[in-house]
């Protein structure tokens, strides 16, 4: 999971707004631009930035290779559906540039920081709260699910198709029942810490950097200029 790197990379402490703006602006320019040169520059630039963020090269190459296969075959599919070979190549490079921007974001910016940005831009607090809870309990439930599945398969629960369907039905409904109980327990535990309806927590402070903002601006202008030539 890229989540692992998001918390431990070298630019974890860069202001998340800067990272979001960098990722989104490069992505938007790539998607709008008709220039394959822009797409290639964005791809290389993101690779360099992720290298600087100390994302292990082997991991990045691995995940990029997977993306390459998907994007390649996806472009072929699009070519089959609609456009010619040249068009397919264009779609291929464009998608690859956008994916680079996307991976930059998810490899360097923890979900917790993205949530704090969403809070800042006045996304309704109910959404932020639901997202925060979802994020936290995804991991709790994944762990439970994986362990329950192991326990089921050690009792032959996935031996044959019939057993498998039955076991999976039981697995999902037991997870649902657990989720209901978990909500009860959580409510109790939070009430005992003074919960009255708002899930307010301390926001982590980030320092914005003039250098980063300048760099992002220069890069964006540079990409736009290249693209419009």
């Amino acid at each position: 999971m890229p989540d692992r790197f998001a918390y431990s990379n070298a630019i974890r402490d860069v202001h998340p707004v800067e990272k979001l703006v960098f990722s989104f602006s490069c992505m938007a320019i790539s998607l709008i631009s008709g220039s394959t040169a822009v797409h290639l520059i964005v791809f290389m630039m993101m690779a360099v930035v992720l290298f600087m963020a100390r994302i292990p090269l082997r991991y990045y190459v691995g995940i990029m290779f997977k993306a390459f296969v998907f994007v390649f075959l996806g472009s072929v599919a699009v070519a089959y559906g609609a456009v010619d070979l040249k068009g397919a190549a264009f779609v291929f490079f464009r998608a690859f540039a956008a994916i680079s921007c996307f991976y930059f974001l998810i490899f360097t910016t923890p979900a917790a920081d993205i949530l704090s940005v969403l809070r800042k831009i006045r996304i309704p607090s109910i959404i932020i709260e639901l997202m925060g809870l979802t994020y936290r309990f995804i991991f709790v439930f994944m762990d439970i699910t994986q362990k329950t599945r192991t326990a089921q398969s050690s009792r032959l629960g996935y031996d044959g198709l019939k057993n498998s369907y039955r076991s999976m039905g039981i697995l999902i409904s037991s997870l649902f029942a657990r989720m209901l109980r978990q909500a009860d327990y959580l409510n109790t535990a939070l009430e005992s810490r003074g919960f009255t309806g708002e899930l307010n927590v301390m926001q982590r402070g980030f320092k914005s950097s003039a250098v980063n903002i300048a760099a992002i601006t220069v890069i964006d202008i540079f990409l736009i200029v290249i693209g419009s030539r």
Partner: protein
Amino acid sequence: MIEAKGVTFKYDSVTALNDVSLRIERGLKYALLGANGAGKTTFLLHLNGILRPLSGKILLDGVEIIYERKALSNLRRRVGVVFQDPEVQLFSATVAEDVSFGPMNLGLSPEEVKKRVDDSLNACGIYELKERPTHFLSHGQKKLAAIAGVIAMEPQVLVLDEPIAGLDHVHREQVIDIFSRLNGSGVTLIMSTHDIDLAYEWADRVIVMKDGAVAGIGTPIEIFSDEQLLKSSFLYKPIVLEIYERLIRRGVLKEDGIVPRFRDELLRCLE
């Protein structure tokens, strides 16, 4: 400090607490023993108003608790609860965020919240986990984070529901050490546990519950010398005490008024 008077509680129609009367004195360490289903957790949840007695009452410093928002909020400020399973208590993405939840609810200033978070993370020895996402923590670390989240509210009474269950040796020692230091700074502690040896060596007072009622309360030596009580409550004698008593009876050791509580103390007697 806290007093239960004739507290009765039922889940649906099953009686969980039956006329429990009990006084918790300020500054002491209490161990709450009893078989599964004896009503320990139910009793603990009454102490900060999460559960409300069906009959009877809970008093804080002699004043009866009323179950409306402001009084409850005041109660919960003073009585913190650490639940058995840290997974139900940690709800936030990172440790610092989670620990800040209680202080935020107290309406403290941002600086004060930050200070409380740092202090309680330090007290629990997990300051370096501050910005870690909750889901990367080990079970023991989650437990410590849950404890930090409660002590950040600076409660006067700390209620601990089986705080050492499932912890390995190292985290167990760490947790007990935190409790001792809190107690040293004046916090009253009430801990439910199945660990009889721990209750014997750690507690100032032992409370024994059985079938929703208090079967006994006293110093560890009083409680664990009461063979009748131990038997009827499915408890047994701590091994250190039992061997010590045998050795006294055999005349190997001489009674000198100081009964060993820790294993090492007993072994030292035998040097």
